[in-house]
């Protein structure tokens, strides 16, 4: 096992199957899954946290999500829907939903009810209370949930290659198929670095959008 594959300049040009293009396709799956997952999970989590109705759902979503095998789910989806991007996105989105749902719920539950009371008492309308007070205050918890979702999906998006799509999983699967362990290692390292970089970017974003008053 060695790093030859990773440092071979030929694998860093912009031709089909090169590392940069695999990174791009990998990120594309990650971003899509995060966007779809957030669109689904955030409103539900906020609603449950705001009203307290259906709390058991939010609390158990986390555990259920962790125990669902993504590869198994992907195979099931492929059987049902055939090959393509859709089954991959469904499997990854299912992975993303629990941490975002749970953190949106926890973020809303952690709000100081006196502050919310003051906001209403000063004459904010419900939408203003949500956007000007509740969301900004819940932001630190929300973002930490988003970060853990992002980390998980970066690592797991390698499954896309198992059903013929691209992404960094290609390096792992193709490498294993021809016993090219240098390629497998390159894949593992790039995924790990990507995860660290993404988390770093999100951490910076967090510093930037969360009010210093909440630190």
């Amino acid at each position, binding site marked *: 096992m060695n790093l030859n594959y990773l440092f071979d300049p030929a694998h860093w040009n912009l031709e089909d199957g090169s590392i940069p293009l695999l990174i791009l396709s990998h990120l594309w799956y990650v971003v899509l899954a995060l966007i779809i997952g957030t669109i689904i999970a955030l409103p539900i989590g906020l609603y449950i946290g705001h009203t307290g109705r259906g709390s058991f759902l939010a609390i158990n979503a986390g555990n259920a999500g962790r125990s669902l095998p993504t590869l198994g789910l992907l195979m099931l989806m492929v059987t049902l829907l055939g090959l393509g991007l859709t089954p991959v996105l469904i499997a990854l989105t299912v992975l993303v939903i629990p941490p975002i749902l749970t953190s949106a719920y926890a973020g809303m539950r952690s709000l*100081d009810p*006196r*502050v919310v*009371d*003051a*906001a*209403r*008492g*000063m*004459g*904010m*309308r419900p939408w*203003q209370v949500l956007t000007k*007070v509740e969301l*900004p*205050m819940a*932001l630190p918890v929300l973002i930490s949930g988003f970060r853990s979702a992002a980390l998980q999906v970066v690592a797991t998006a390698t499954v896309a290659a198992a059903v013929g799509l691209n992404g960094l999983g290609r390096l792992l699967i193709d490498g294993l198929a021809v016993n090219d362990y240098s390629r497998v290692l390159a894949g593992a390292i790039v995924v790990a670095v990507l995860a660290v970089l993404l988390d770093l970017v999100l951490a910076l974003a967090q510093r930037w959008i*969360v*009010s*210093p*008053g*909440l630190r």
Partner: protein
Amino acid sequence: MITFDDVVKVYPGGSTAVDHLSLELPTGKTTVFVGPSGCGKTTSLRMINRMIQPTSGRILIDGKDVAGQDEAELRRGIGYVIQHAGLFPHRTVLDNVATVPMLLGKSRREARAVAAELLERVGLATEFASRYPAQLSGGQQQRVGVARALAADPPVMLMDEPFSAVDPVVREGLHREFLRLQKDLGKTIAMVTHDIDEAIKLGDVVVIFRQGGHLAQVGTPQELLEHPADEFVAEFVGRDRGVRSLSFDSAADLPVRPLPADLVLDDAGRPAGWSTGESTGGTFTVADSLRLVTDLAISSPVGIAVRVDDHGKADGVVPHHDLVDHLAARRGRK
């Protein structure tokens, strides 16, 4: 004027928090709701700005039923201060105070200008403006809470235990500040407290509630201390209500004696102690209350309270036996 017209609040589950309350809160005055915990003070207060809906009855502000008004708009016209201030932790002090002016459509610039002015009014230095609430002490937070409620210059203010969460020394300062502000502003204020001393100190009118949301008595602090309606009120205002009612009597008509020879004066004629070496322990002027004089006479080592004029020059003394005679005569007059 705020009018409670036969207001009832029964919470789901059947507990009656407010029971047929009819009451008028005079314009430009501070009305304090006081009573033991759970007697319906907060519920009554929060029905004024519709944070709680009455089960029956009406509440009117200057003759207008609050029930017919848009909730958010009604509340923007009513200052709201709560215990622990409830400041927005993610906004600076300045932006906390600018909140309502901005809700009312002022530009950020205008709103911040108003906010800066108000912070000064409540005694906070400009350096606090850019801080976040977590960087302030409890007393400072409470000042910001008051400034925030005043920012849109609302005619009516609701204050729920605004000074309960701070220590006694800080509270004392906030009380002084409150009285000074209210003298300038003349808002129509409804305030809740569980502390009868605070109610007597800050209220123009004091409303005493008893368990079950019933009115026990309404009156000026002096009326409540001197003529409690029943055993409950007498007990609630405290056993020392006699002494406390002296706060409302002026020392102006208290007869004084000439300065005795053993009172030592400094060059400016100010009292410097007794010839025995003991301190005078404080002085009073004609503007002070009988309570202060009584206190001075009791705590003085020689049993004599010393009066001074506006310049601090000693101009007479009151021995405690004279004070006792005066109190006896006062009792006869009442």
